[in-house]
């Protein structure tokens, strides 16, 4: 664009930078406050002295979280869920997107298959029937209750399908002439080409699994099976009980940390994995947009 150096333009730029700077600040200050509270002494937090910098710096709240108990247990459940869930999601998405990327001449009944999947995007049975099916399937208190009901994310599958369609057909044709079957073509030729698309949908799958909390609450009767976000949800209401349950000398514990610092520390630890993958998310995000917006 052409540069413009008038006074009005300069004033606009100053105002613009100020607005952008303040808005961005508003987006991260709550997290700065959370971090400050989590590293502060309980007395300073109770007195309302902590704003954006820790007062009476202590790591007690983090030690409490990492000493064991429910936090680590739930962190482990979430880790299993993310790994298993993402693998299952990606395998099913690829296995579904590849045949559906073909024309109806190459895969008979493609339209029917497509309708079968797309209908689930338009209409769903709602909370109660879905819950009852999981109960009937005997998945209550099993990690599979968090993975199988959403095992095939239709929207991401369509993104992947559109991506496969955008690849030049000649690649596959030459392999077919060489006598390779569909499964061989998929594994040997398509998978390497699909890497950027898989990275995009994979990252969003990881974030989705990590952030889910409601299914854990309704499908797990035993809190030991809660994924991290479900556990964090329960401590929004009852962190004091978790501190009581810890068994150590309660009054001594209370002198070093309180409900607010303890909760802040665990909430912050719950965001760390997201912050770790965030740079990658950003890198792939625009790509995901491009993949998702096939116009025709």
């Amino acid at each position, binding site marked *: *664009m*052409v540069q*413009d150096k008038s006074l009005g333009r300069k004033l*606009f*730029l100053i105002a*613009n*930078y100020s607005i952008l700077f303040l808005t*961005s600040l508003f*987006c991260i200050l709550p*997290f700065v*406050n*959370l971090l400050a509270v989590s590293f502060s002494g309980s007395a300073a937090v109770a007195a309302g002295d902590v*704003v954006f910098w820790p007062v009476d710096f202590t790591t007690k709240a983090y030690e409490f979280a990492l000493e064991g108990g429910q936090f680590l247990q739930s962190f482990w459940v979430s880790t299993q869920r993310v790994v298993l869930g993402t693998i299952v999601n990606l395998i099913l998405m690829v*296995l*579904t997107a*590849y045949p*559906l990327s073909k024309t109806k001449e190459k*895969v*008979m009944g493609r339209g029917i298959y497509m309708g*079968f*999947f*797309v209908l*689930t995007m338009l*209409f*769903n*049975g*709602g*909370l*109660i*029937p*879905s*819950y*009852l*099916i*999981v109960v009937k399937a005997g998945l209550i208190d099993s990690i599979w209750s968090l993975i199988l009901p*959403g*095992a*095939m994310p239709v929207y991401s599958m*369509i993104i992947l399908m559109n991506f496969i369609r955008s690849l030049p057909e000649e690649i596959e044709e030459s392999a077919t002439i060489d006598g390779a*079957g*569909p*499964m061989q073509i998929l594994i040997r030729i398509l998978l390497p080409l699909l890497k950027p698309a898989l990275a995009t949908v994979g990252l969003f799958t990881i*974030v989705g699994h990590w*952030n889910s909390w*409601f299914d854990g609450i309704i499908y797990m009767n035993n809190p030991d099976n809660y994924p991290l*976000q479900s556990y*964090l949800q329960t401590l*929004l209401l009852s962190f004091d009980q978790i501190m009581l349950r810890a068994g150590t000398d309660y009054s001594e514990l209370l002198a070093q940390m309180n409900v*607010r610092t303890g909760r*802040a520390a665990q909430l912050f630890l*719950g*965001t760390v994995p*997201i912050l770790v993958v965030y740079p990658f998310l950003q890198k792939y995000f*625009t790509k995901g*947009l*491009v993949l998702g*917006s*096939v*116009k*025709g």
Partner: protein
Amino acid sequence: MLRKLRQQRAFHLMLVPSIILVFIFSYLPFYGLVIAFQDYNPGLGFHSPWVGMENFEHVFKQEKFLRTIWNTLYMSIFKLLGGIFVPVIFALLLNEVMRAAFKRTFQTLVYIPNFLSWVIMAGIMIDILASDGIVNTFLGLLGVKPISFLGSPSIFPWTMIVTDIWKGFGFGTVVYLAALTGIDPGLYEAALIDGANRWKQTIYITLPLLAPTIILMAVLSLGNVMNAGFDQIYNLYSPAVYESGDIIDTYVYRLGIVQAQYSIGTAIGLFKSVITCILVVLSLVLAKKAAGYKIY
């Protein structure tokens, strides 16, 4: 011919796992919807006594339920409107920033809240919006009396609307910014020669070229009109604000899962699914007409 069939068989086999899983977890709940017309008894399962439309008649007579519909629409519509205007304005302002590093930094900061779960966000909100939280402390410095953001029925919906837009506007910003980058710089150069200033360029070039994306995003968000944000509201509401904060989804959860009134819960869920389905289909039709967009 035989060889062709053999090749096709592999494609069909690839689809089998997803079809089975989607059938169990998405289609069987459709069948489960029959309990909306029954007086569900866990012992009899889906063969409970038939009661016809009785559950619906019962529900629609309840003022409490009608209020949840109003609350849902009220909050979701303002969320949708804000969710369109705020990111468009922010993207336009961001687009005026010439230095790529600044642009990227602002974008990175405003996009972070999007990737964190409402559980984490609610934990932060409860802390900063408390009567002695940092928000009220700052307002106090300006001479404003403490505001009960989460406890007052008249303020609660607006707390939900504003915090939802706050959490989500980074996504829209990225989408619109991607669209803005796609505008041909030659158009601006031509306009400059014709004597159009930045403001006129924005009105006559940028906005019209951005319009299809704005319309597309608006139309696609239509499907969310019946969702006022369960994750957010469930984690932030309390009995004190049920009158203005209770939405269809939270009501179904309390009635259906917590109180185990499966039939009533399913009836409300079915009502919601039907309306949502109509809206989603409508949005897809409109998206195709207005922006030539189709999902597959």
